[in-house]
């Protein structure tokens, strides 16, 4: 590629990146501002002076580590459950033939379109009857399986060549072993795609944890951060701090998995 071409490409990429990152960078800069500069006009793009005081204070006024731990527990168990449940559901639908297979698959898919106006309230009643009120299990179990993920994973399983399975059978491997040690490793890219989506969903979940959990000490990050927007107290820099803190882990996960993620997307759509 010519140097001019590369230069043009870089310029374009930087402009697009600024548009995409702009609002995020603004939050970052707000979180680093001192009180007086918060509402300065024209706005300061690069804070002067830069201060980490807001971060210290937010950790001071609320048990943020505690909320983070709750979020980690919730996200880890939620993502773990979801991936296991979706994998074991998608696999037979993709690779095994049994009576009712198509019916089950299409019935599952159709729920993506059907209306669900009172879903949250009905699910709360169920959680209550199962005795899961005020427990982390109650928060994650309704999302233990998600239709879209089953769909993605099924597409990925379908693409695995038959020979892989057959040669394992000849070697006398059992069904479950074929699933665990041959099939699942084959679709790692798709699993990482699913993992990222799951991680985002659980990490940012706001309303459902509030409803299921009776004890605010058990709240995950997203609802806890909304305490920063209290009805009688409100500090914009703190809100910015909270937002930045909550975004970082998702970005880290994405950075780690991004190559796999793109490959997973190919599998998902092409099939």
């Amino acid at each position, binding site marked *: 590629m010519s140097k001019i071409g590369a230069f043009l490409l870089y310029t374009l990429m930087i402009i697009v990146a600024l548009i995409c990152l702009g609002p995020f960078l603004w939050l970052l800069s707000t979180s680093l501002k001192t009180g007086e500069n918060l*509402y300065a006009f024209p706005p300061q793009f690069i804070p002067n002076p830069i201060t980490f005081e807001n971060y210290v204070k937010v950790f001071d006024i609320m048990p943020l580590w505690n909320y983070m731990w709750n979020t980690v527990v919730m996200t880890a168990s939620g993502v773990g459950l979801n991936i296991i449940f979706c994998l074991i559901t998608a696999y037979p639908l993709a690779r095994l033939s049994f009576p009712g297979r198509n019916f089950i698959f299409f019935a599952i898919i159709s729920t993506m379109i059907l209306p669900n106006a009172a879903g949250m*309230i009905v699910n709360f009643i169920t959680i209550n009857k199962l005795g899961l009120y005020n427990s982390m299990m109650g928060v994650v179990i309704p999302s233990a399986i998600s239709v879209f993920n089953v769909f993605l994973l099924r597409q990925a399983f379908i693409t695995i060549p038959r020979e892989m399975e057959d040669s394992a059978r000849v070697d006398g491997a059992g069904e479950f072993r074929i699933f665990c040690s041959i099939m699942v490793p084959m679709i790692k890219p798709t699993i990482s795609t699913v993992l990222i989506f799951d991680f985002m969903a659980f990490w940012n979940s706001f309303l459902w944890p*509030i*409803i299921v959990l009776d004890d605010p000490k058990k709240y995950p990050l997203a609802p806890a951060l909304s305490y920063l927007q209290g009805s*009688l107290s409100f500090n914009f820099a703190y809100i910015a701090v909270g937002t930045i803190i909550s975004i970082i882990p998702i970005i880290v996960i994405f950075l780690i998995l991004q190559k796999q993620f793109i490959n997973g997307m190919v599998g998902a759509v092409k099939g």
Partner: protein
Amino acid sequence: MKRIGRMTVMVLAVSLLLSILAACGSSGTKQVEDTPGPVTINFWTISLSPTFDDYVNARIKKFEDANPDITIKWTDLPYGSMENKLLSSIAGNQSPDVVNLNTAMALKLADKNALVDLNKEATEEQLSIYFESLLHSARIGDSIYAFPWYYGLGVLSLNKEIYEAAGLDPNQPPSTWEEMKEHAVIIKEKTGKYGFVPIYNPPIDLFLRGVPIINEDKTQIIVNTPEALEWAKWNKDLYDSGVVPKESITADAGYATDKYQGGQIASFITGSQFLNRIKNNAKEVYDKTVVAPIPTVSKDGKVHGGLMNVVVPTMSKHHEEAILFAHFITNDESQLEFAKVVNILPSTKEAAKDPFFTEGDSNEPEDVARRITATQTDKAIDFTLGVNKEGEILEFLWKYWKEMLLGRMTPEEMLKKAEADMQAKLDEILAEG
């Protein structure tokens, strides 16, 4: 893909059938049981934590010490999640016992029979401590559904610097809305900044200007009056003239606060309890602030106070204990202490008389605001229609008011249409019983 379509239709049909069966088999059961012995009272508030943790926990401790059989479990909910959590909990038979709600939300639950009628279940003595006008905010017919809690009254905050830059004297604040406008015109001309951001609340604004909104019998909507027309026209002219930002049509208190904190508007009207936001967020602007009474509106001096209430849901299993605590957290002592932590006004008569509200001569904006608003407590109201589903009736006024500002209808048309549609809705509600 034909199959997905066919299958979806089938699943839909089967689900419908099943659900009809399910619906026939089930019916809501509501029961109230009063069990003797130790009880736990679930107390829900709206976004008071973590700022007021110390205050609330201290009050709870005091109550528990006096009532060893009752344990209070306090849950503070983030703003915006109360409706969802409350509805789900009532549906799931996990109803809280004492809940902090604003008046509109309390009334909505009240007309669904979800709240305890305190006129029946609370004692005369318990009810007697509150200002009657505030106690009656959550009244429908003869029933009273909430103990009033804290509220704030509006004060006018002026940014000294902008006022002086425009050649105006901040110590002579505007005392009428006409003056507000005159000042705003001058400020716009001299500094390019806005004088103020109107925050519209058509039902209350009109009511304070002598528009009855509803008749005594609660059967007739009266919105289309000369006073109403005058106010509507005045606002329309103001909006069209560009003296106030076009964004004011969607502006709420938060928007105006942000602009004021940013030094972008010269003055704004805010609840006295929110001044501490400016103090925390923009100390510079706070230090430049002069606080004055709001421009006069109503002839009889009535002022609007956005009220927070405490209610007891019918689904609570311990009405008696719940009422006891609801009364405790809103009694003179509790409110007075709360007022000392944050700039709110008490809804009880004795607490309001406390010298704390009137004494002192500091020029600190928060203190000035407290002294100003303390003289108005007996004139404070939180306007309500006092009929079922009032939100759905008032919605027309809100909607048409905005459409008028946007030029989709004239002030005359707006009032006529609002009155007609509100009346139709009221008739429909009265017909339902």
